[in-house]
């Protein structure tokens, strides 16, 4: 066993000792199985197809300590990351541990559960265990296995059948970094939407600038029949942090789900989104926007699995890469033998702002049914010089013209996000980072 893996084993043992009685035997067994699976798989290498362009050596070669529950969450300033609009509930986690003092649940309907996953595991064991670890299988991905073994806490959201939430639920994960001893946290989110329910869920990840830490999150989402979900993942980690995130979505008959991913921070970012359309007439939208500058690497892997007939999926991922940044996109659409009448569309575009930026794109189609409509398109290029010229002839200076065009490029994805406050928030951050990236490029 590699020394770096040994360290996770030790962390696991001490974490299990702390937990001891809080979890059921079933839960403990799952954690143990997940750990042994992780030790078996080890960290992925670039020789593996799924990780061909993303080396996780920076994570594997460092040691991270599991964050202990914060006794006093006082010094953490979460104000800049709070939701700007009215929200039904805001759950704040510091280094993966629930911080009730910072959270609000005032506007929540009585029947809706939104709170700590660790608490729910003991309070509503049977309800949680039906789904936990069942949507995101840990046997394939070492990071899902690691999360399953080590997660301390996370959010548990349960929207009962026939319930419509007017305002979104915000789940905020803040990392403190840990200074000299870099921290690792493995937050877990489980969202269960009952039949005919409707909700918006926003996940945010943030950390202090310059801090180096490792976040490995797994989100599991289960949708009942006719459920409608609008899901956002807003990642603005510190520019030196490592963020590995996996989202698993599973929809029943006629469930509609949209998952928007915005990646703005992190030195090494990997997002996996797997959507399983497991019921007839389901729909799924995956949208993504990422911006990388400096020497950062953003890797987005998406899989849309059409298992049942009459499902539709739409996907748009766009990336802006400046300096020496690297972008990776891998979008897979699987159409299973029975999934007739599938209608799937995927678009991937990348904008390279500098000579040294790179992108690797691989849109995949795997089709086993014949009565389907599937298309994908990928395009990589730089800003259209004609468009820049046009704007300059209208009196804009060069950098202003470029900024406007990049803004329009990103706007295509942003405008598909129904929540206005998110749109505005992301636009602001984007403007700030773009100005920085463009200055660096110029």
């Amino acid at each position, binding site marked *: 066993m590699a020394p770096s893996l040994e360290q996770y084993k030790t962390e696991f043992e001490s974490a299990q000792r702390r937990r001891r009685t809080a979890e059921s035997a079933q839960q403990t067994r799952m954690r143990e199985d997940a750990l042994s699976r992780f030790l078996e798989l080890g960290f992925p290498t670039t020789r593996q*197809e799924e990780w061909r362009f993303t080396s996780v050596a920076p994570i594997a070669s460092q040691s991270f300590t599991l964050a202990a529950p914060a006794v006093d969450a006082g010094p953490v300033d979460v104000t800049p990351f709070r939701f700007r609009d009215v929200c039904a509930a805001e759950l704040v986690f510091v280094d993966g541990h629930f911080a009730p003092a910072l959270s609000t649940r005032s506007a929540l309907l009585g029947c809706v559960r939104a709170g700590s996953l660790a608490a729910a595991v003991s309070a509503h064991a049977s309800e949680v265990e039906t789904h936990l670890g069942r949507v995101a299988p840990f046997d394939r991905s070492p990071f899902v296995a690691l999360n399953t073994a080590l997660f301390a806490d996370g959010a548990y959201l349960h929207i009962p059948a026939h319930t419509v939430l007017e305002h979104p639920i915000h789940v905020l994960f803040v990392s403190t970094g840990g200074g000299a001893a870099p921290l690792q946290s493995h937050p877990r989110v489980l969202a269960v939407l009952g039949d005919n329910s409707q909700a918006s869920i926003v996940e945010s990840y943030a950390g202090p600038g310059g801090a180096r830490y490792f976040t490995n999150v797994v989100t599991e989402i289960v949708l009942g029949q006719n459920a409608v979900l609008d899901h956002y993942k807003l990642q603005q980690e510190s520019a030196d942090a490592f963020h590995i995130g996996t989202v698993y979505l599973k929809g029943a008959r006629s469930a509609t789900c949209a998952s928007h991913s915005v990646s703005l921070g992190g030195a090494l970012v990997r997002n996996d989104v797997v959507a399983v359309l497991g019921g007839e007439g389901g729909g799924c939208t995956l949208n993504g926007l990422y911006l990388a500058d400096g020497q950062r690497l953003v890797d987005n892997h998406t899989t849309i699995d059409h298992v049942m007939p009459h499902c539709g999926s739409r996907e748009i991922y766009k990336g802006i890469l400046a300096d020496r940044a690297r972008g990776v996109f891998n979008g897979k659409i699987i159409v299973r*033998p029975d999934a*007739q009448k599938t209608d799937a569309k995927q678009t991937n575009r*990348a904008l*390279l*702002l*500098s*000579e040294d*930026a*790179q*992108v*690797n*794109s*691989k*849109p*995949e*189609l*795997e*089709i*086993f*049914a*014949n*009565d*389907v*409509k*599937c*298309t*994908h*398109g*990928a*395009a*990589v*290029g*730089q800003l259209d010089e004609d468009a820049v010229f046009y704007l300059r002839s209208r009196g804009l200076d060069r950098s202003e013209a470029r900024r406007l065009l990049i803004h329009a490029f990103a706007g295509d994805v942003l405008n598909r996000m129904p929540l206005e406050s998110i749109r505005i928030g992301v636009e602001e951050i984007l403007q700030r980072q773009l100005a920085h990236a463009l200055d660096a490029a110029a």
Partner: protein
Amino acid sequence: MSTSTETIEQLATREYKHGFYTDIEQEVIPRGLSEEIVRLISAKKQEPAWLLEWRLQAYRTWLTMKEPTWGNIKYGPIDYQNIIYYAAPKKKPALQSLDEVDPEIRRTFEKLGIPLEEQKLLSGVAVDAVFDSVSVATTFKEKLAELGIIFCSFSEAVQNHPELVRKYLGTVVPYSDNFFATLNSAVFSDGSFAYIPKGVRCPMELSTYFRINAKETGQFERTLIVADEGAYVSYLEGCTAPMRDENQLHAAVVELVALDNATIKYSTVQNWYPGDKDGKGGIYNFVTKRGKCAGVNSKITWTQVETGSAITWKYPGCILQGDNSIGEFYSVATTNNWQQADTGTKMIHLGKNTKSTIVSKGISAGHGQNTYRGLVRIAKGARSAHNYSQCDSLLIGDKCGAHTFPYLEIRNSSATVEHEASTSKIGEDQIFYCRQRGLSTEDAVNMIVSGFCKEVFRQLPMEFAVEAQKLLSVSLEGSVG
């Protein structure tokens, strides 16, 4: 009794004379692969020492390699020790008339509309004096020689033009390239060699069909085509006739080199035995084809129509090294019954202002699995590179599959790369419309399929385009209704 006495005698004399390979004319070399066998093949072909050394290097490298498993294809293990790596030219009994030919092959000939004389030639019927293929071939050869074009079998080239072979062999596909190419480098039997001198435009389509000695080249062909500065050549490989070849494994290598301002057009129509309706038998076709646009303004076009083989594994690629060079890839791949195809292209942009176009059409029917796997890499120095890729799949029936795995690796911001793919089936309304106009369902499907492939067929030399189209309808036979 007398024969066994002879054998004993032969054995005795063999030891006495030049070692064990004296009477190879009557015998096939033993099964299996070893250094001995590689030496034997090389000696049999009277190759110079450097070529033997090259083969041995390849063989030693091959021993350290593993068979690739990343392809989206399934097949049983291949026993590399159970293959005869060199067979002396097979002497088939010449058939007296076409009546002796397998009736199924004859029916296919008729569907393809191949002229009677050609049918005879293709099925190995002794050809009469009127249509003497040998003399036809010779007249063409004379004409080519006048222009300084060298077009001969690979072994002839090794004997007569060793300096050219040595200069270009392995420059595009090195002996250590991949498992199958390395195997080929060690044991290749024969193939074609073409050299077009400076500024010459080859006046006719070069084709193995005209070169009688290229028949029976066997499993491990090696083709090398070099177009010198300003030269142009169009080369057509394979023929549209059904090949009832029972060989299991085919591992060929094709290398193209285009120098400054040269153009090479390479067209393939592949129709090896695809196996029967239950997926039994059929050829495993593992081919490495690559062209290098070494000079400025050079151009290489690959056109392939792949309708045969149980398994097709091939990725004709272009290395666009010269500035302003162009690479093109046009492909139609059909899989019916239990055929599997994992095919596509690699476009490696190294030079400035390089351009590549990829048009791939996949048709799956029956239980066929069709995969497009392509790579477009824009290297850091390749300023203003341009790529356009399009891969469309057509599905006929609900048991087949179509897969697309395009890799786009962009290292230069001035690149423009576009990729589009679509998958669809033949619309009920399209068929209905044709039926309304009096066409049978089968004809309607054929018409729609040939419309789907038109973009690729347009790239083929005229007469072959016609045949390819017919071939397509033959290979899709029985997949409708």
